[in-house]
């Protein structure tokens, strides 16, 4: 459970980062003229769309990890996996990779440059331009579609979580990872839709740092799963499946 709590917190703290980018979208989506109820539906649909995209990415990443490990013939029988003494090499490699990726991205939250250039590429500008026209469209399909596409906007936070999902080496766990993370972003994003920009930039900056801290912690744990000798790995693995 601790693991998922950590993910949720990362999502929650990370949503201070979201406010900077996606929060703008939530604001632009704005209230529905038909009243508070319709506004809520609008924003819940938007966030559901976003969550679906995250889940999909998570499940895909988890599945990919699974396929890689299976095809390498490194995955053992399900029944014995978390009781066995050591983690297999494939999972270890994935964990190391994911952990390193997360640490790099966490560092970018602390203001280290370099990653931003990778994320702000050709695809994102095209997507953002496309999204603008959706904001003004009436009806319930548009916010849903907007949320779905929004979910694919390049975002270091999402990438970090997807890396985490891949290292779980399981479709369900990958999906759950992203669900929990996505739910963590819900409060802030829903609040943005209703209340507008509540938080001063200074607080947002702190929130972003906090998110960086959580991701760094997650990254270190994931990395630890990969490199630490079997005892540590074993413990984490337990925690993992209890969660």
């Amino acid at each position, binding site marked *: 459970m601790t693991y998922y709590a950590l993910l949720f917190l990362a999502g929650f703290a990370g949503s201070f980062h979201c406010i900077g980018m996606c929060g703008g979208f939530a604001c632009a989506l704005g209230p529905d003229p038909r009243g508070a109820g319709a506004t809520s539906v609008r924003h819940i649909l938007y966030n559901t769309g976003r969550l*679906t*995209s995250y889940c*999909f990415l998570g499940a895909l990443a988890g599945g990919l990890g699974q396929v890689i490990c299976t095809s390498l013939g490194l995955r053992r029988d*399900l029944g014995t996996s978390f009781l066995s003494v050591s983690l297999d090499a494939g999972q270890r490699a994935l964990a190391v990779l994911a952990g390193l990726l997360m640490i790099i991205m966490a560092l970018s939250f602390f203001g280290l440059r370099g990653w931003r250039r990778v994320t702000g590429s050709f695809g994102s500008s095209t997507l953002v331009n496309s999204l603008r026209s959706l904001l003004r469209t009436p009806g319930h399909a548009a916010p849903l579609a*907007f949320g*779905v596409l929004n979910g694919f906007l390049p975002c270091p936070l999402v990438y970090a979580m997807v890396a985490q999902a891949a290292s779980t080496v399981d479709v369900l766990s990958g*999906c759950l990872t992203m669900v929990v993370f996505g739910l963590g972003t819900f409060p802030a994003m829903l609040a943005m839709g209703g209340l507008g920009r509540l938080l001063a930039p200074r607080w947002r900056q702190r929130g972003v740092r906090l998110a960086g801290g959580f991701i760094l912690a997650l990254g270190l744990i994931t990395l630890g799963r990969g490199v630490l000798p079997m005892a540590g790995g074993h413990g984490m693995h337990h925690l993992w499946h209890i969660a």
Partner: protein
Amino acid sequence: MMMATPGTLCRHCLLPVGRRGFTRMVNGEGCQFCCYGCCIAHQVKSGSGDASEAAWFLVRLGVGSFLSMNIMLFSLLVYSGAFAGADRRVLPTIHLLLWALATPAVLILGEPFLRETWSQARRGRLTSSALIVLGSLAAYAYSTLAVFHGGGHLYFDTASMVLMLFTLGRYLEAAGRARASRDLAPLLAAESELATVVEGARERRRPVREVRVGMLIRVKPGERIPVDGLIVEGRSHTDEAVITGESRHVAKEVGAAVLAGSINLDGPLLIRSSGSGGESRWAQICRSVRDALQQSSRTQRIADRVVGVFVPIVLALAAMTLLYWVQRLPLDQAMLTALSVLVVACPCAVGLAAPMAHSLGIGQLARHGCLVRSPGALEALACARLIAFDKTGTLTLGRPKLVDLASDGVEEEEVLARLAGLERHSEHGLAQAIAMAAIERGLDPIAAENVQVVPGRGLRGVVLGESVAAGNAALMCELGWQLPPVLSARAEEMASTGHSVVFVGWSENARVGRARAVLSFDDTPLPEAAGTIDALRCLGLRVTLLSGDHAGAAARVAATVGVDEWQAGLLPEAKRVALDRYRARHGAIAMVGDGLNDGPGLASADVGIAVGSATDLARETADLVLPADGLWLLPWVVGRARAVRSTILTNLAWAFGYNLIALTCAVLGLLQPILAAAVMAGSSLLVVLNSLRLERLPGPSYPSAVQQPTAAAQAACEPPPRQQGQRRELALLKAEW
């Protein structure tokens, strides 16, 4: 969805619409598109105002993705065994849920493909959409049967993901292609552009083609100047890169001439139009770019033909795969294999390989004032192994100066006065030199009558009742006029140092005349010629000089600019023969001339390149036209042409190679349909991205090895300012001596 008229350009990506094209109403205006992806992308881009229709496409993509992602999610969970064991009894519910999600997903995402297939099928054509529709509908129908009649696997994820991936792939592809057309957009928009016409106190926006001589046009800063004209009011800087090839800020004040197509940079201007809007060089460039884009090169035609027969072949292959595997595997496995075959063999990438690289190349060249007549010309230039240059006006300034005059028994002044009168009727470059010399000495030309041009020889006419002739020794010979040994010796001496020599003679008392003087002229090579030739040689091209002038002059220019091979004294016809001989020995050849007197030469070369051409581009025969004074652009143009060609070749190699390998894998049952669709959609995206690499190549830079000590520093970054208008006129004055 109506069919588009063939030969037009896609509204979004500006590639020819081709056979897949259709017309759709956007914002109340009929627009032609080459494919579904462009249609979406255009609506998304242009839908800034009333965006309902544009957004509708995105809503469709978004909702479709939402549904297919959920399908995929549940399918992945089912595959990964999350519902194995105790949870097995929820499986039928999950299956029903999948069906409920898949039905709207297939309808929403598949409709445009179905529509395209249907409209093409009514015309008896099969397009790649048919493959996608057939594949996903088969997967959907089979899975639906499995849900309601029990048994078997479900392939809803395949059905919806294939459609989603193709929709997404086409959209991204279209977005990439629109980037390629960025350079072209202003060129193609020129005809429909509006000019602000000032009529008394009122200002009206009128189409450029309705602008007549003498109208007053207002141009705001940042706007493109729509017509040629003179500035009546205001001052500003303009950028004439589109006309001259040099991106340079030129200061303009009241009374200065501005060119259509140049950009008004920083001040409002009021311009009196000096020609009608549709006749400016800019308008002509735009028309000719449009024409060029609508033509297809040989490579493209071959690719199109392949695409044409591809779809039926793939259908047959899929049927055979199904028949083969159904005997060895359960029906659903066999079907899946056949489905992979259908999905993987979409020939979009093949069709896209050449046109995108072409339009990128043509657009970039046009932005620097270089005009390409047809995409084939670019490919031919890329293949050329030898470049032949004309001398006068191409490698040289084309503005000779009188340097020496030797007469036999007559006054120099008399020679010049008679000659100047005669040469007034000539458009040759030497005529200008003679007129200048006469003016310098304060002489009035004596009027001449009955002046005729003797092609390749010179001029003859009547001055003061006596027949007068000026030209080379051959002309004197033909007339039967005697050439005094004194003069011929001097002439030989002059010619041996590489000067142009002209004999002048006249008759006395209507008797047979004789040569009375010999004049020598000097034509200086262009400052950038040596650097250009050097750069071309670095590109691995053989360079040769074909001159109509005599050997000495050709040799001198050849030595100055660094050409080792030259032929002199060639009449236009002889140049053609020489080119044929070179072609036999070296393969494809390019010929560079001034576009006026080298007509036959330029036409007989594989690529004719005109530098600083006639004012009327429509009459231009060269395949490639560089701006006046644009010789220095040539190495860049060659490099560009080669880059375009190599991009096309890598695109084709990728598209064909990929299709071949993927098809083999699919037939053997080694490829999952979803994976096939993903890689297929990625394949055309890869072609787009590979073509977009052309954008990153550097622009032209003026050769630094210019022998101009005074302006060396300046020349390194930009061409030295020369009197372009004057030189262009002088180039026009060249006749066929």
